[in-house]
C-alpha cells in the first residue's frame, strides 16, 4: 500500500470541509472495497477521511412512506433492523446476501452506492424502488445517480448522508451470485407500486446497473408471470467475462426477473 495520511472525523461538517480542503482525499467508511483496492495499489489516495464512526450518519428510521437509512449503516445493521424487515423485507433480504458475515459487519450502504460496482446489490434496490439519495449538498433521485461503471453523479466534494427508500411492499430481489465471490452475476430488483412497475438489473450491464424498460412496460400493461417469461433481455450491452458470456448472463437476468415476478404474484 502506498503511503497516505489519515484523519478521523466525528461530524458530517468536519468530513465535508476535510474533503473540500483536499481534492486528493478519499472518504473511508467500511473500507471493504477501498482497503483491498489500496492494498493492490490500484488506488493511492493522499488522505483517508474516516467517517465510520460519524454517529449522525448511523441510523435507520421510517415514516409512513419511506425507510430512511444513514449512509454509514453497515449491511448487518440493515439486514437485522426490525424497521427494514417489517417495511421492506426485500431490502432486508438483499442486505443479508451481500458478501459474507464479516464483510457485512463493516461494509456500508453509502460506500456501496458511492462505489457503484456493476455487480453490487444496493444499486439495484435504489433503482428498483426509486430511492432518493441525500448528500451533504443536495437530494438526487436514483434514476439520475448511477452514471457508468464505478461512476456516479456525485461531485468530488460530495458525501452521501442518507438513502430514502419508498415503502413498496410488493418488491422482490432475486440474485444469482457468483459462487466464489457472492457478487451478483445477475440480480434483478422488481417493485410494483400503485403508480408504476420498476425492474432494475445489476451484475449484467456493461455500463453498470440499469432499468429494464421493456420489461417494465410489458409488466405495467399486463402483470403476470407469463409476461415476464415472454420478454427476453438482448445480450447486446450485457457484460461478458471469465465468469460468463453475455448470452449466459442475459439468460440469468431473464430467469431472475421471472423468479421475482413469480414470487410477487404468489405472495399477493
Amino acid at each position, binding site marked *: *500500500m*502506498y*503511503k*497516505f*495520511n*489519515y484523519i*478521523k472525523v466525528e461530524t458530517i461538517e468536519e468530513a465535508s470541509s476535510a474533503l473540500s480542503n483536499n481534492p486528493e482525499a478519499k472518504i*473511508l467508511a467500511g*473500507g*471493504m472495497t477501498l*482497503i*483491498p483496492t*489500496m*492494498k493492490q495499489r490500484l488506488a493511492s489516495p493522499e488522505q*483517508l477521511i*474516516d467517517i*465510520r464512526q460519524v454517529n449522525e450518519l448511523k441510523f435507520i428510521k421510517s415514516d409512513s412512506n419511506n425507510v430512511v437509512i444513514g449512509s454509514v449503516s453497515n449491511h*448487518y445493521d440493515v439486514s*437485522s433492523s426490525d424497521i427494514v424487515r417489517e417495511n421492506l423485507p426485500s431490502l432486508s433480504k438483499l442486505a443479508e446476501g451481500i*458478501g*459474507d*458475515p*464479516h*464483510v457485512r*459487519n*463493516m461494509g456500508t450502504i453509502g460506500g456501496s452506492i458511492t462505489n457503484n460496482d456493476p455487480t453490487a446489490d444496493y444499486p439495484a434496490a435504489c433503482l428498483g424502488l426509486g430511492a432518493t439519495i441525500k448528500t451533504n449538498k443536495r437530494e438526487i433521485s436514483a434514476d439520475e445517480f448511477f452514471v457508468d461503471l464505478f461512476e456516479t453523479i456525485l461531485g468530488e466534494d460530495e458525501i452521501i448522508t442518507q438513502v430514502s427508500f419508498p415503502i413498496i411492499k410488493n418488491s422482490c430481489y432475486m440474485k444469482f451470485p457468483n459462487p*466464489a*465471490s*457472492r457478487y451478483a452475476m445477475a440480480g434483478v430488483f422488481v417493485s410494483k407500486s400503485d403508480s408504476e412497475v420498476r425492474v432494475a438489473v445489476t451484475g449484467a450491464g456493461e455500463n453498470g446497473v440499469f432499468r429494464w424498460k421493456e420489461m417494465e412496460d410489458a409488466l405495467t400493461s399486463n402483470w403476470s408471470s407469463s409476461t415476464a417469461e415472454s420478454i427476453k433481455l438482448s445480450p447486446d450491452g450485457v457484460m461478458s467475462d471469465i465468469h460468463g458470456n453475455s448470452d449466459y448472463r442475459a439468460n440469468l437476468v431473464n430467469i431472475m426477473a421471472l423468479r421475482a415476478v413469480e414470487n410477487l404474484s404468489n405472495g399477493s
Partner: protein
Amino acid sequence: MPLVEIEINGKKMSSEVEERQLLVHFLRDDLNLTGTHVGCDTSQCGACVIHLDGNAVKSCSMLAIQANNSSITTIEGLAEENKLHPVQEAFKENHGLQCGFCTPGMIMAAVDLIKRKPILNEKIVREELEGNLCRCTGYQNIVKSILAAAEKVQA
C-alpha cells in the same frame, strides 16, 4: 507516527502505528499475537477474523488505525485462564480441524455466529461460513463442531 489506543483481549494498550499498517500485521508483527492468520490477503479466506467491538471482521481488510479506541478480541483472548471457550472445546471434541490454519478464523466466526443466531441448523451454519475457507475441505467436522458448540452455549 500516530498513536492508537486499543483494548486487546481485555488489556488496554497504546502503540505507534504507521497509517498504512493493516490491523492483522499490527497484531502479528508488533504484538506477537500470531494466532490470527493471514491466509489469502485478499479478503476472501477469513483466517484473519477477529472481533472488533464484539463483531467479527477481517483484520486483513482494515487498518490498525481504524481500530483506535476500540476493543478487540483475538483467538488468544477467548479462553479464560486455562479453560477453553465452549467453541474451542467443541472444535477439539469434534475434530473440527485438520491442518489448523483456518481454525482461528473459523472459531472467531463461529463465536460471532452463535451470538447473532443462537438457534442454528446445518444449512444456516454452512451459509454463514461463506467468509471462511478451509483448504483441507474439512467442513463436515467444522459444521459439526459449531452445531455442538451452539447447543452447549444454549444449555
